């Protein structure tokens, strides 16, 4: 596994052309224009390393895993479990057994809402924030309605930061059993002060889950340094495959939690009367897992680690600064949110042009952005908007693409006014 911490100045200079050459899709044309893909926050494109790892697994070394006594099965099991080690390293988790593979971040959060939720008692509360993705809101609403758990919503400031004073106040009565907050907003780009959030939560006797779906892509993640209790992310935003996500949780929590799905591989013994559960993490992985996708996730993590998070973070910070500056010059354009720390995501609106129209007209020029509520409707309501346009940047984004975006936005606005 590549080291995460290479810090030479050379390492933090990212050769964007060399990187782009590894993403075949970036050579595609859309409406006869070169694809300008500024929608990585929805799902990132995949480098050859990931595509090849999946194809080669299926071509050369594949069988169902666990308990197979033949070579193909043993090798596939080793490779699958090897990715668990990689993920543990990637998150700096204390132990590989704390890594549970899920379909995506959504399933990871649902798993916690179900299985850790079963340990909460009526009268206890779960505290989320106003800027959560539906994935970190709806499962808690379902838990509330099922189990009589109170759901509290910590407000954000007008700039789009978590309101830390209000957050503390929500914890004051000691009823909050779990704080579940995004580590980076997919709408505002806000990177939340996770270790501070954890400290405050722990002081109030609450555990803390971070939705790292956006965050893990942009900087090195260290669940021990954050003092997190649960952490989730999703493969497809990390240049990895669809169909694979990760839940990390402290061992003691996983051990206490009842299983989520029942079936093969998650049991120790089964009789018609009664079943006993396998050890963690297998207790939470029922049925044939996403074997090939797990290999692809491993390849993505190795690939990203090779590029290095210092380089990635520096590249994205430069892009984001450039975007904020260039977009500010577009007449009628308003950036949504002004958080203290921001990842490579910029939401905006334009006077007299609806975000949907922006998106469609950009698309006619080969530029892919997202427009809508970004699965964060309550946040939209808080912002007094029904939709925004959102450009998001990845490891392969070029400064020039942001210029094309800004120039095209000026033309679109001209067209409408």
């Amino acid at each position, binding site marked *: 596994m590549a080291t995460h911490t290479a810090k030479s100045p050379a390492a933090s200079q990212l050769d964007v052309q060399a990187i782009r050459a590894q993403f075949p899709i970036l050579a595609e044309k859309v409406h006869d224009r070169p694809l300008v893909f500024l929608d990585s926050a929805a799902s990132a494109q995949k480098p050859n390393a990931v595509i090849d790892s999946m194809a080669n697994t299926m071509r050369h070394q594949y069988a169902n895993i666990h308990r197979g006594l033949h070579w193909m099965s043993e090798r596939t099991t080793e490779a699958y479990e090897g990715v668990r080690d990689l993920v543990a390293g990637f998150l700096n988790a204390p132990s590989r057994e704390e890594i549970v593979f899920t379909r995506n971040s959504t399933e990871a959060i649902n798993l916690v809402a179900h299985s850790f939720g079963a340990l909460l008692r009526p009268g206890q509360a779960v505290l989320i924030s106003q800027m959560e993705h539906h994935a970190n809101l709806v499962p808690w609403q379902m838990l509330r309605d099922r189990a009589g758990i109170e759901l509290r919503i910590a407000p954000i400031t007008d700039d789009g930061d978590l309101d830390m004073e209000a957050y503390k106040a929500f914890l004051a009565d000691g009823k909050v059993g779990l704080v579940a907050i995004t580590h980076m907003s997919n709408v505002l780009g806000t990177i939340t002060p996770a270790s501070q959030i954890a400290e405050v939560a722990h002081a109030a006797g609450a555990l803390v889950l971070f939705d790292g779906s956006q965050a893990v892509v942009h900087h090195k993640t260290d669940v021990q340094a954050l003092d997190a209790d649960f952490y989730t992310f999703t493969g497809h935003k990390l240049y990895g495959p669809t169909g694979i996500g990760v839940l990390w949780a402290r061992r003691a929590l996983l051990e206490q939690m009842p299983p989520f799905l029942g079936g093969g591989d998650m049991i120790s013994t089964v009789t018609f009367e009664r079943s006993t559960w396998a050890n963690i993490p297998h207790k939470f992985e029922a049925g044939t897992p996403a074997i090939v996708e797990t290999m692809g996730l491993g390849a993505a993590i190795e690939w990203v680690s090779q590029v290095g998070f210092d380089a990635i973070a520096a590249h994205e910070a430069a892009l984001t600064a450039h975007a904020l500056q260039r977009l500010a010059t577009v007449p009628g354009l308003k950036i949504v949110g002004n958080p203290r720390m921001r990842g490579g995501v910029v939401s905006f609106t334009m006077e007299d042009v609806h975000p949907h129209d922006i998106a469609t007209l950009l698309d006619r020029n080969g530029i892919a952005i997202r427009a809508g*509520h970004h699965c964060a409707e309550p946040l939209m309501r808080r912002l007094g908007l029904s939709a925004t346009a959102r450009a998001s940047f990845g490891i392969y984004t070029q400064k020039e693409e942001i210029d094309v975006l800004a120039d095209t936005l000026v033309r679109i606005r001209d067209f409408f006014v």
Partner: protein
Amino acid sequence: MNSSTAERDALYDRLIVERARKPLHAGRLDAPDVQGEGRNPLCGDKTHLDIALNGHHIQDIRHQTRGCAICSAAADLMAERLRGETVTQALQVADRFKALLVEPSSSAVVEKSHQVPLGALEVFAPLRSHKARIRCAELPWVALEEAFSHVDG
């Protein structure tokens, strides 16, 4: 101008942009006979319709729309097209408009088009290749159907 730009311009016909910016049939009626509303929860777009009937005829029709250019223009051009029609005719135009937005595959559609002219609404034809935007143009028609669900044709 290459074909893709041509198509873009076709999709956002001047007429659509103008009607979105300066609708001619926006507003409310003092005493509507029927009302309808269309909402798209996925993007927050919303159209409200007030309709005054004279017997079976649409005497006046006004819309209040918050939405994208496609949605706003569709509401305004719909109101324009339907004023003076009977309820039955209006619903025929609605059917015809829906058909316009899908690929013109069945000859039945072509046939019908001889019966019920769409007029200016034809500008929405390029939406066919923008499936995700079709519901923007359909929203006012959802409101229309709701309004007429209380009227026997």
